[in-house]
């Protein structure tokens, strides 16, 4: 759930999504769900001539399973906070494993 929460903090930022079929789409992150399906607004395709079918498209819903990379705006990522959250989640899972 950590990455779901993480992506939620990036809403309304510009991101570039690279898909497994090599298309890169840049746009404003509008929404994300538990499967990391992603919704982008005001999109531009990085190599438009190669993918002419997306020229008349303004916003996309990308299925999480076809994403290869998400390029993030470095300024919008709070790395210490993310490290903290990771440790806390790890501690929680560890504690749960001990109980079970």
């Amino acid at each position, binding site marked *: 759930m950590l990455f779901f929460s993480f992506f939620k903090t990036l809403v309304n930022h510009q991101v570039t999504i690279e898909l497994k079929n090599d298309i890169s789409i840049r746009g404003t992150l509008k929404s994300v769900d538990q499967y990391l*399906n992603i919704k982008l607004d005001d999109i531009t395709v990085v190599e438009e001539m190669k993918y002419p079918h997306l020229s008349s498209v303004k916003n*996309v819903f990308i299925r999480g399973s076809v994403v290869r990379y998400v390029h993030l705006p470095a300024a919008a990522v709070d790395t210490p906070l993310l490290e903290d959250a990771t440790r806390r989640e790890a501690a929680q899972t560890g504690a749960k494993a001990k109980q079970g």
Partner: protein
Amino acid sequence: MERLNLSDAAPQGPGALPPGQGQPMMMPPGPPPVPQLPPQMFTTAAQLLDLTDKKLMVVLRDGRKLIGVLRSWDQFGNLVLQDTVERQFVHSEGKALWADIERGLFLVRGENVSLLGEIDLDKDDYIPEPFKEAPVEQVFALKKQEEAAKKGTGKRRNKKLAEHGFEGEHSGEAIL
């Protein structure tokens, strides 16, 4: 099911005090909470709800492009598309062509969907410059050639990779 609206406030957890009963005495541990948008905005349903009854460009995992009106869907991303046309593009031998093929009603299984794009009705069916509309047969024939060529290079690449102990990234399927 509860009828929630995107403008509703986030639901209160079971431990939270009802509004107007004073502040909780202790802050929870960890950093101060970041103001959050309501969680019902971050569901598959909320994302697809906006796209319902809109004209969409659906790209399937095998590279096919379908244009149709989204009429129904579920939590798996299974889709029903009405009045669908398949649009094929070829860009080879110095020619850039496209053609539409009438297809009709589709039920697409969610796992085969790569992306859904809402078509901007202001630039409806805008296709950038070098591409020209051509008869279906011509585009289809060129497309077949192009795919055969791609298959050849893909096979060779995978063979080379296999020699070094690697597996090609799309070895299981053709992604175009």
